[in-house]
């Protein structure tokens, strides 16, 4: 599964994208975030305010309780500030 990170999440983690191999227990978006946060200080910092982090599965906004299912791409980012 490909992960994309944007804005402050990208800066905290120190990369824009990577391929993840999460454990089978990571069923939902929240599970994946929890697992990622344990992958190092940079990840912990990125997901410190986990509730404010938005996620998209295959380029569609999802809530954190959404199942990862067979999604090929997941993105994490702070609240959007376009316009």
């Amino acid at each position, binding site marked *: 599964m490909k992960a*994309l990170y*944007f*804005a*402050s999440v*990208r800066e905290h983690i120190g990369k824009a994208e990577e391929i993840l191999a999460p454990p089978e227990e990571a069923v939902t978006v929240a599970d994946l975030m929890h697992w990622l946060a344990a992958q190092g200080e940079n990840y912990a910092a990125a997901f410190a305010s986990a509730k404010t982090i938005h996620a*998209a599965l295959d*380029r*569609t*906004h999802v809530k954190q309780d959404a199942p990862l299912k067979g999604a090929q791409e997941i*993105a994490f*980012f*702070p*609240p*959007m*500030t*376009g*316009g």
Partner: protein
Amino acid sequence: MSARIFVRVQKEPFDAPLEAASLTKGRSDIGAVVTFTGLCRDEGGALNALEIEHYPVMAEAEIARIASQAAARWPLEGIIAIHRFGLIRAGEPIVFVAAASQHRAEAFAAAAFLMDYLKTGAPFWKKQHFKNGASGGWVAAKGEDEAAAERWRAS
């Protein structure tokens, strides 16, 4: 839902006037065109530029989805939505939306709706660059923008 929808996400500046004119060119069934242009403010002279990061493909798709919602909600003849990314200097345009309809109320409502949802639902993030060389960091999302988007759900 016969509105013609044009969505673009681009690095280059755009010509808002020219874009708006394309909605009515050669037509005489449109009575109202409302446009919104959002520009980079210099924040009292302190800001040099905004750097806009975006999620390619999703940005276009999300804006198109919002435009389709507007077209389903109001009888519109045409919609334009353009959003830039990359470095945008103070005074330059960032975003442009236009809505054309037979009567004015629908064009006003649709343009405001498009902007409210673009602000909170399209994957763009702004970082400030100040004139003194400092980075002002990422612009924080505003509660009032969430509230503005929320009002369309209530009605």
